């Protein structure tokens, strides 16, 4: 395939990958939580989108106003039920990994039980159509996903920069102790951040529903992919999440072109592995031992 074409395909997907990565990295930045359940909740959102599409013919993008608030609330509730108990634990970050791992198993099991392992996908019209520009084709569905992702990412940026809560979140990400000392209620902010992160996963799930076929146990692959994106970008860095996402999306596009689609996930796993071994702080992360 034409190099430019591959580049375009990569860039388009980079949008929705950025959306996924930003939610996950936000959680780490604010609360030092490595959320292994992030992808399974994304798939939960995809199922919500699927049934809204299947039963009420709602366009996947239009399910976002449903999936985001639902996932936000779910995130806040889950955070408050589980995490405050850990705050005094010595091996806090390790514990969050194990806890979210357990959570991922629970949700995966429930999804499989209720929805079975059949491959699902929503099928909006733009999912299979493309624009043609000269020799190049631009899949409509992915362009839509890019557009939606950009809107949401800009919204996130504005929220963090302008609102008081957003500023408190940024402060907590930079220095949790300092934030506490200037009057930020870090527990409340953590719960809200968890909600926001999950809401972003929710939006990504809605988009995912037509971009890739999904089924419950698929989430492990997505979690590894998302982790590779944020590890490359630097844990806790939103800018890094976007850069990492676009970089790996483009890399994966080239791998798919040269070696075929079954090798695409390997790009992410290998990248994850290599970054952890040789530059664990990623591109923009602080040189802090996580």
């Amino acid at each position, binding site marked *: 395939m034409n190099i430019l074409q591959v580049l375009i395909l990569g860039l388009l997907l980079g949008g929705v990958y950025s959306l996924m990565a930003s939610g996950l990295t936000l959680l780490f930045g604010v609360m030092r939580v490595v959320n292994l359940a992030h992808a399974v909740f994304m798939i939960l959102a995809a199922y919500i989108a699927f049934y809204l599409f299947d039963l009420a013919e709602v366009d996947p993008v239009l399910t976002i106003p449903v999936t985001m608030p639902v996932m936000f609330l779910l995130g806040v509730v889950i955070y408050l039920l589980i995490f405050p108990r850990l705050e*005094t634990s*010595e091996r806090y970050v390790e514990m969050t990994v194990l806890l979210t791992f357990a959570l991922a198993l629970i949700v995966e099991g429930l999804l499989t039980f209720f929805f079975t392992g059949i491959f699902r996908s929503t099928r909006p019209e733009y999912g299979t159509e493309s624009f043609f520009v000269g020799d190049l084709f631009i899949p409509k569905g992915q362009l839509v996903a890019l557009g939606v992702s950009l809107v949401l990412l800009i919204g996130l940026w504005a929220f963090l920069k302008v609102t008081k809560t957003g500023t408190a979140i940024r402060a907590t990400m*930079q*220095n949790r*102790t300092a934030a*506490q*000392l*200037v*009057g*930020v209620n870090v527990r409340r902010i953590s719960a809200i951040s968890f909600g926001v992160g999950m809401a972003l996963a929710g939006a990504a799930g809605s988009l995912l529903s037509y971009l890739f076929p999904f089924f419950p146990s698929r989430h492990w692959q997505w979690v590894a992919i998302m982790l590779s994106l944020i590890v490359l970008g630097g844990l806790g860095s939103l800018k890094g999440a976007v850069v990492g996402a676009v970089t790996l999306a483009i890399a994966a596009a080239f791998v798919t072109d040269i070696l075929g689609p079954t090798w695409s996930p390997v790009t992410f796993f290998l990248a994850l592995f290599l970054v952890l071994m040789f530059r664990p702080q990623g591109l923009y992360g602080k040189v802090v031992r996580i």
Partner: protein
Amino acid sequence: MTALLDLKEIRTGYGAGPDILHGISLTVEAGRSYCIIGPNGAGKSTLLKLVCGILKPRSGEVLSNGNSVGGLRPDQLLALGISYVPQERTVFPTMTVRENLYMGAYSVEDKDLVEERMDRVLTLFPILDERRSQIAGTLSGGEQQMVTLGRALMVDPKLMMIDEPSLGLAPQVADQIFGTIRQLSQSDTTILLVEQNAQRGLESVDWGIVLDLGAKSFEGPAEGILDDTRIRELYLGTRVSSRGEVEG
């Protein structure tokens, strides 16, 4: 007259570890300035962390103006006017000096008041005024210390607790910091200072409190403390036995 801060028989420690403070009792009067000194491991920092809400008391009471404030969170204590400048540099590293100071006023609603205080802080620390658009993470140690002090002042605290401000700073820079603290101690703000450098610390305040092994050893006017023979015992480990002979 109820004290600004009243600690009664406080015991506390970290996590599941042993008690660091063993039944400490202390009174802090409004308007005065205090310096807590003592050897390493005496529990000085622990005491401050307890008062500012980072640690909770395991037993004993913490009262402020007669009200019990023992289990409150740091942000709640801030609302009562208790602010804390920790040992570790706690600037917001990617924010500018100005943004850092504004963050200090996070809990303040009145915008005009915030501007007023901002002016006051920048006057108190001219260097910060100069560097107000610089990214805080790129400042020197002393400048970052000033940022954290300035930030704490943005809420116009009733009680300001400062933990080892001169740690890791060059003597000249430390001088500046102590100078500012002395200025502050002459204002309405009550200062509670913890300092390893006993001499410099005591020079900046009215009253000295000596801590040892998690308990209050003795206290008195700052000027007299350094001359007190008990200090030498504490720091050098010589003990005068009941028969008046020097041991250890």
